[in-house]
Every structure is written in C-alpha cells, then in structure tokens.
C-alpha cells in the first residue's frame, strides 16, 4: 500500500524525472569529471549544466555554488569558514530554534573559545530581532539563522536581517534547507552571504547538498583535498546526485507556484478540518508567516508517539514534536523555546506536505485522526479530569 506521506520536512520522494536524469550517470557514464579524456569531460559538462540550474533557482552565479554531502555539511562549512577567515572575531549569533546541525555546532563552539548568543523566539516562534541587533557587535564573526523552521514552518525575516548584519560587517549565513523550493529566494536581491540547502528536501536524493557562497565572501574549506569545487571542497563529486539536484532545482522553480497554491490549499484544508473536528487542538507557530506545506498541531492530553503509531496503522506518515527517547521525555527544543505548555507539547504532530499529496489523502487523514485522538484521550487520566472540569464549569 502506498503510504500517505506527510513527512516531507524529514525527507521527500525523489522525483521520477530526477531519477531518470540520474540513472545514466550511475551506469554507463561513470567517468570522473576531473579527467582529461572526453569520457570524463562529458560528465564534467553535465555537472556544469546542473550547477547552472541550481544557481538559477537561487538567483546566484554558477561559481557561487559549492556542492556538499548534505545540509549539515553545508552549515558546518559556512560557520567554520566565517570563523577561520575572520580569526580576530570570537562571537557567533544564532537562534534557539535552529536545526541540530547549527545548534550543536554553536554549542560546541561556545565551549571552545567562542561566545555564542542564542536569540530567543516568542510564543509564535517569531525571532526577537531587537535582541539580535542589541547583541550584534564588531566582534561578531557570523550570524546564522534558519530561513524557515523545520518543525513549525515559521519563516524568519531573513532578507531584512541579512541587510543589517551585512552592514555591520559580519557574515550572514542562512540554513535554508526547509525554504528552498517552497518560498521564492533570490540572492541577487538580498544580502545573504552564505546559504545552505539539502537535496533530499526538494525531491533530489539523500547525500547531496550545496552551499551558496556570495562572491567576495572570505572562505576557508571545510574538507581539504583535491581541487574540486575550485578548491573549496575536496573530494570527487557525487556526480549522479549533483545531476539529480540540478534537475530537482529546475522542477522546484517550475513548481514554486504550485507549492504556494495547490500544496497550501491542501495544508489549509487538513489543518482547518482537524482543528474543527478535534477539540483542544491548536496550531504551533505563527500561521501568518509560515511555509505553505507545514503545520504543527498540538493535541492536548495525548502523547505524540502514540498518535504516530496509531496513524501508522493506516500507513499515514507524520512526525511528532516530542522525542520520547529514554526517560527523558523532552518535548522538542523548538516548542520549548516557544513556551508551548507541556499539556500540548507532548502531543504535537507535524504534517509536512509536498506537491505529490492529493486531496483524497487529506480526506483520509481528516477521517482517521479524530477517532485516534478520541481513543487515546479516553485512555488518558488527564482527559477525564479535564472533561469533568468542563462539565462542571459549563
């Protein structure tokens, strides 16, 4: 049975067009793009095409693209590059709701000779921009902020912040892994110095990512090795995947309109009807500044893993905001930073759609989920107390 896949912020289906484009480079055209012979050189030409397509999606120049192995490598490359090429600066600014790729590196750096400022967010997940500007100083080497949050979809005003940071003389990096292909991005018209993206979040395969580096930005390679990527990232190119990412970028540019119309309509329907049919449920995050494909819904008094496993019975794939790993039943750092109360944080579910989802799939989730929540609530000792309390007051 085909899954009802609503976990596209975790990873996406590789587009069939992308697979088709890749296959010859996994089989007959196996040459090394750096080779002197035509057999390898032709592969190099194909990589050049792919690079141009990805650059087009971002409004960048092809030579401003550095291919990496994933979003995490892109983030690490960007942050280390800024620190190593600005050795007199010892300060980093990031937010409290970043992906672990940036969060854990920032925490590591803060224990190893650097100062790190973690900018807070409000209850809707919006960044405290005043706090950021107050902490921006001449010592700030890099400001790294996600374009859109992976759990709530909340979008930060990256272009506005980038301009200010850039004027201050610090490097501005954005982890745009969740934003690329879902919201319009044009680096030619903003002041973003470096931008990370990941292939598998936009219908390319896993194991390929890219870092946009604005021309003129001071840079130091993260992976030292051969001359690949103009010496900015050593290692033989992941040829087929890079070609796949090029195709995916081309498709993303074509689909951007669909994301914001078709996908958004489906997401809005799913969200509206779930909220209507399930009492004590609410959306996490600012609904006005959000990715078109994401909704994080809190179902009070039930626990996320139970919801996911019951949905799994119907082959519905989503993810939960809380990770019930070991005894530390910690809700996600994103929801905690937003101050989402425990009553709802533990029962938060993220649905993230793609252009491959259909209205029938939404209808099925809208049909199946309310009884699941009801069942779990009937089992929950807190629900009967709450329901009882409601009857008395009502």
């Amino acid at each position, binding site marked *: 049975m085909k899954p009802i896949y609503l976990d596209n912020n975790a990873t996406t289906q590789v587009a069939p067009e992308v697979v088709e484009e890749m296959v010859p480079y996994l089989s007959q055209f196996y040459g090394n793009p750096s080779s002197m012979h035509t057999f390898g050189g032709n592969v190099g030409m194909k990589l050049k095409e792919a690079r141009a397509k990805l650059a087009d999606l971002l409004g960048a120049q092809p030579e401003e693209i550095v291919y990496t192995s994933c979003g995490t490598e892109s983030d690490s490359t960007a942050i280390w590059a800024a620190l190593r090429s600005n050795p007199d600066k010892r300060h980093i600014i990031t937010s409290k709701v970043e992906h672990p790729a940036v969060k854990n590196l920032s925490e590591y750096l803060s224990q190893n000779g650097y100062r790190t400022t973690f900018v807070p967010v409000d209850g809707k997940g919006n960044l405290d921009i005043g706090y950021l500007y107050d902490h921006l100083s001449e010592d700030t080497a890099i400001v790294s902020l996600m374009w859109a949050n992976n759990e709530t979809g909340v979008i930060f005003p990256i272009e506005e912040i980038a301009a200010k940071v850039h004027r201050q003389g610090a490097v501005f990096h954005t982890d745009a892994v969740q934003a690329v292909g879902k919201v319009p991005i044009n680096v030619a018209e903003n002041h973003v110095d470096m931008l990370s993206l990941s292939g598998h979040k936009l219908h390319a395969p896993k194991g390929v990512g890219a870092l946009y580096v604005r021309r003129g930005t001071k840079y130091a390679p993260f992976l030292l090795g051969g001359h690949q990527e103009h010496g900015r990232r050593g290692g033989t190119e992941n040829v087929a995947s890079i070609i796949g990412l090029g195709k995916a970028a081309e498709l993303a540019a074509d689909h951007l309109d669909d994301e914001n119309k078709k996908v958004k309509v489906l997401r809005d329907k799913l969200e509206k009807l779930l909220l209507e049919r399930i009492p004590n449920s609410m959306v996490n995050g600012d609904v006005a500044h959000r990715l078109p494909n994401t909704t994080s819904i809190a179902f009070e008094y039930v626990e996320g893993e139970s919801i996911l496993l019951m949905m799994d019975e119907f082959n519905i794939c989503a993810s939960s905001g809380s990770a019930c790993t070991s005894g530390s039943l910690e809700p996600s750092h994103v929801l905690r930073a937003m101050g989402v109360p425990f009553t709802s944080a533990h029962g938060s579910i993220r649905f993230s759609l793609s252009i491959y989802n259909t209205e029938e799939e939404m209808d099925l989730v809208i049909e199946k989920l309310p009884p699941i929540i009801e069942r779990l609530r009937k089992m*929950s000792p807190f629900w009967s107390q709450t329901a009882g309390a409601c009857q008395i007051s009502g």
Partner: protein
Amino acid sequence: MWEYTDKVKEHFINPRNVGEIEMPDGVGEVGSLSCGDALKLTIKVGEDQRIVDAKFQTFGCASAIASSSALTEMVIGKTVQEAQEITNEQIAEFLGGLPKEKMHCSVMGQEALEKAIACYLGEPEKIPEGNLVCECFGVTDVQIERALTEHSLKTVEEITNYIKAGGGCGKCHEKIEEIIASVYGTKTDKPPQPKVLTNIQKIKLIEETLEREIKPALKQDGGDIQLVDVDGDRVLVKLIGTCATCAMSQVTLKDYVESKLKELVAQTIVVEEVAA
C-alpha cells in the same frame, strides 16, 4: 522507529481493561503531564483478598499503554500478596521485552500497582526515603541506589531509562555518578581539577609548551611560532616562516596550537595572531 515486539504492539492497539473502576478498593497514580507519561490504576478486591478487577488510564507512549494493559491482565485473579511480588521485569517479560530506553514504562506500572495495593491495605502514602536527587522527576538517592542494585545498572543513562532520574534538566548527573561510584565502591575517573596558575606560572607554562610541543611540529613544515604577549587567557602569537604565508595557518592556529595549549595549560586559553 522503536523495535516493539508484536505483543507490545498488540496491547497498544487493543489495550485491555481501559477505564476507571467505580468505587475502587485501591487507587495508584504515578507520573504527570510534564513528565510525559502518567498512569492511574484502580483495583477491586474480592472477599478472599483476590483482585477481581483492574482498570487503567494512561497518558504516554505506546509502551506505556502496553505496559499498563499488561499489568491489568497480570494482576486480575491474583491475591493481593501475589500481586505484591510482581516486578517491573515481569511486566516487560510478559510483553516479550521492551526496548531498554522504555524500561521506565514497566517501572511506572509496578509503582502504580504498589501504590494501589498500599491504598487498599490502608497503608499511609509512602514518602520516598532519602534525599531528593532528580528534582525534575522527584527521585531520591535511596531509589537510585535500589535501582542500581536490583537491576545491576551501571551508568546514568541506564538509570534514566529505568527510573527517569536525570532525564530532565540533567543537573543531577554528577550526583548520580557519585551514587554509582559509592554503590560499586569505585571512584569515577574525574578529570584532575585544574590548577590555579599565577600569571608568571601561566606564561612559563605556555613558553614551555610552545618550545617542547608546538615548535618542533611546526618546524617540520618549515614554519615557526613566536610568543608576543599573554593577556589573561589571550595568547598573542606571531607565525613565522612558511606558517606566515600558509593558507591553512588559521587552521593550524586554532586546531593545533590552541588545542595543545588548552590541553596542557588551561581550558580557557584563546590563541590570537598578531600581524607579522
């Protein structure tokens, strides 16, 4: 995705004895909303001290619900004395095992049963003995010691998996380490306390480290380093020879020179380059 046994899945999807007995003979409640899981167990006891009915309400993950369901099946038909003998391991065994990170779910079941029986017997609510160690989940040193010896646990992580202590803010990890050390009579390998150095001592130590450890390594590549000044924890240096023109000099400075000085002089050292 957790590797749950078929029996865990089956008890999760079709839990037995969900609900609350009206006019119960015993009630046991453990956990809370903020903890992320909670269980309310109600029991009915017959004339011959036999548990004739048990029902549960659980907020929590799949294994918490399955453990509660299993618990009710296990206690119905047993005498109170027999039920008192049930351990959390037996609950886990009944389900064909639980992932180790989820053992606390079976502990929650056992604790709720203990409380429900105490309630039935009219015993006063047991206040956990000992001093509070984990404030997040209200676990005392005596409970940790008991878990260590009864389940032969060895690490903080295992303690967290079993009784959740240390699973919240993490402030108590050091205390738990101490308890583990005292129970097993071994000393934990604590890093030696950093010595407080006077400025003179620090500068001397930095010089020695540069001479003994760092310079020889740089010289192999035709480079050298010169100490310019020490300002608190800031160590100002000048790179000489091939190092001065090397594109990788910043990497050398941070990843080699600084980390060596951190290791051998003080963790707080920051190395900075002054213009040649």
